[in-house]
């Protein structure tokens, strides 16, 4: 306080109070995001665990049916509108996995190579052109991709694979790869580019060729970054709605066949929330699906973030 210049004293109390007020104003705005995420989560939770007192939470997974001989059988069925309502989300989770896993596999096989090309092989000029194009593709509205798979892709697919159902899980998976390839490619490129030049130079000076350097030095070092990209892509595939709603066929069956119609969690909410009456058990079940999606994607994002943070620490020798 003693060292302050005489001019500093001229900043009056009024001024200081104003600065403080402004700071609190910005803090409040910053806190809106925290409030929103809490609000979304608590609201989903509240709605999904609401409902009738005679409804057992286990019915969200299976219902027990008494057979003729007195024994009980577990049924995993999603029949929300039938008289004997069954609200098992197991077939929906299976449907989500049947579209998201093939989509992630396709996108990994293609996206990682695109990332390697952009980072290691393309000249800097070509990269400056191709990178924005890849980002533009990531910005294509998903409804357009769903529409394309429904109108154009489905017909080609049926001609090639002779599938029984025109709309099926693998068709949705191909549609999903259009949005996941850019994610994996961009994150792979970022992971590879973050590797210090010294590592490449050391490898070259030992006589390694370009491909040997890429496959034995660069990729092993960046493997955690690449896998983070794959996890993020998978999370995106799980949460995507429009493509699966339009291309997966929307039949809630308990199947493991990717050439059959499936119904995902997201598509179920999208297709049924419009018609359900607020406050019915079906309505609460849709919120329960929302909660499962929210927690699932949150965990996937968290894992990816932890991996990326770990890799950053490792690379900064």
């Amino acid at each position, binding site marked *: 306080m003693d060292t302050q210049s005489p001019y500093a004293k001229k900043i009056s109390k009024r001024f200081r109070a104003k600065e403080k007020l402004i700071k609190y104003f910005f803090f409040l705005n910053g806190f809106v995001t925290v409030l929103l995420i809490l609000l979304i989560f608590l609201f989903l939770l509240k709605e999904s665990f609401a409902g009738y007192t005679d409804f057992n939470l286990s019915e969200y997974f299976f219902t027990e049916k008494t057979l003729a001989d007195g024994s009980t059988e577990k049924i995993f069925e999603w029949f929300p509108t039938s008289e004997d309502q069954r609200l098992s989300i197991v077939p929906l989770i299976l449907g989500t996995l049947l579209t998201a896993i093939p989509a992630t596999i396709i996108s990994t096989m293609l996206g990682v190579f695109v990332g390697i090309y952009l980072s290691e092989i393309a000249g800097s000029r070509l990269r400056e052109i191709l990178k924005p194009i890849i980002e533009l593709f990531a*910005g294509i509205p998903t409804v*357009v991709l769903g529409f394309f798979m429904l109108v154009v892709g489905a017909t080609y697919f049926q001609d090639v694979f002779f599938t029984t159902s025109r709309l099926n899980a693998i068709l949705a998976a191909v549609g999903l790869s259009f949005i996941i390839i850019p994610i994996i490619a961009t994150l792979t490129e970022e992971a590879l580019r973050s590797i210090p030049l010294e590592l490449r130079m050391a490898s070259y000076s030992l006589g390694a060729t370009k*491909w040997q350097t890429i496959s034995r030095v660069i990729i092993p070092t960046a493997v955690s970054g690449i896998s983070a990209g794959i996890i993020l892509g998978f999370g995106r595939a799980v949460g995507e709605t429009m493509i699966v709603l339009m291309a997966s066929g929307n039949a809630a069956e308990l199947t493991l066949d990717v050439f059959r119609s499936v119904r995902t969690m997201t598509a179920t909410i999208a297709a049924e929330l419009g018609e359900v009456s607020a406050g019915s058990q079906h309505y609460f079940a849709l919120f329960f699906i929302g909660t499962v999606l929210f927690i699932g994607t949150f965990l996937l994002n968290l894992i990816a973030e932890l991996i990326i943070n770990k890799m950053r620490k490792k690379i900064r020798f």
Partner: protein
Amino acid sequence: MPEEKNIKNKEIRKLPASTKYYEYFAIGLVQVITAFVFLILFLVLGKIFYEGAGIIDYQFLTEAPRNNMTEGGIGPAIFGTVSVMFLMIIFAVPIGVFSAVYINEYAEDNLAQRVIRASVNNLAGVPSIVFGLFGLGFFVLFIGKNFDEVMGTGLLLGQPAMLWASATLAVLVLPTIIISTIEALNAVPHSQRAAAYGLGATKWQTIKGVVLPQSRSGILTGIILAVSRGAGETAPVLFLGCAFFLPQLPVAYLDLGLFAVPFINPAEQFMYLSYHIFILATQSSNPTLTMPVQFGTAAVLITLTVLLNITAVIFRFKFRRTLQVVREN
């Protein structure tokens, strides 16, 4: 033993030829796959524009659908999209930019700051359909219904409407705006702030007079990206007032006696470009007859988002160049 060593050495000498072919093969494979990916992506876009370009003219862009959606245009859908984006910006931009200012300028490295940052990242990862659930359950059925009850306005806001669709999309694009604004603020050199402080400016004066003006085009980039994202989303607005067909635009007139001022009515339903594609492709009575309209709408929507993205890229480029000039001087 020495013999074996010699053999090994010979093999190493031999390696270059096979390594060379392997090298060509591997690098070639990467190139071929990359070319394949870009080819497929362009083929998809090409097909949509090839099928859709024929129908797009001035009338298509301005007229309302006619004759059971098989004729006419998508004018109301474009109007609805622009209105929703307008309201969304009003909701999201102030909060987004102010939060970014707090995170980048005010917050110290403490728990509060880390919690806020983590929330922003989490919000960015929430599936879009969950925002739809939240919008219907919270905005429409909780806030809207209670508002109507308390104010006694009948059924005004307690139903799906443009207001709630834009509010929900605002929540969805908030992370986009915050993250781009943080980037823009962060790019302003520290020396600029130091110079302002040296002249006796307070923190707020520095932010208002130096930091914000310099990061203007960076912030604009974020807003444009947010609009592009919001216009392309369908899932969140599915149950928030999107209409298959509306006989008139969601416009109300404010009567001022001598003349009436038209304004967007946020309590109305609206038509939306992305929803228009979805509903025509899946639920129209005759999907084959509306096919040209579907492709045309898809082409318009892609053009809109791509143009917005390109504008954002240009703004970002300009922003970086301005900062470079600042740094050099």
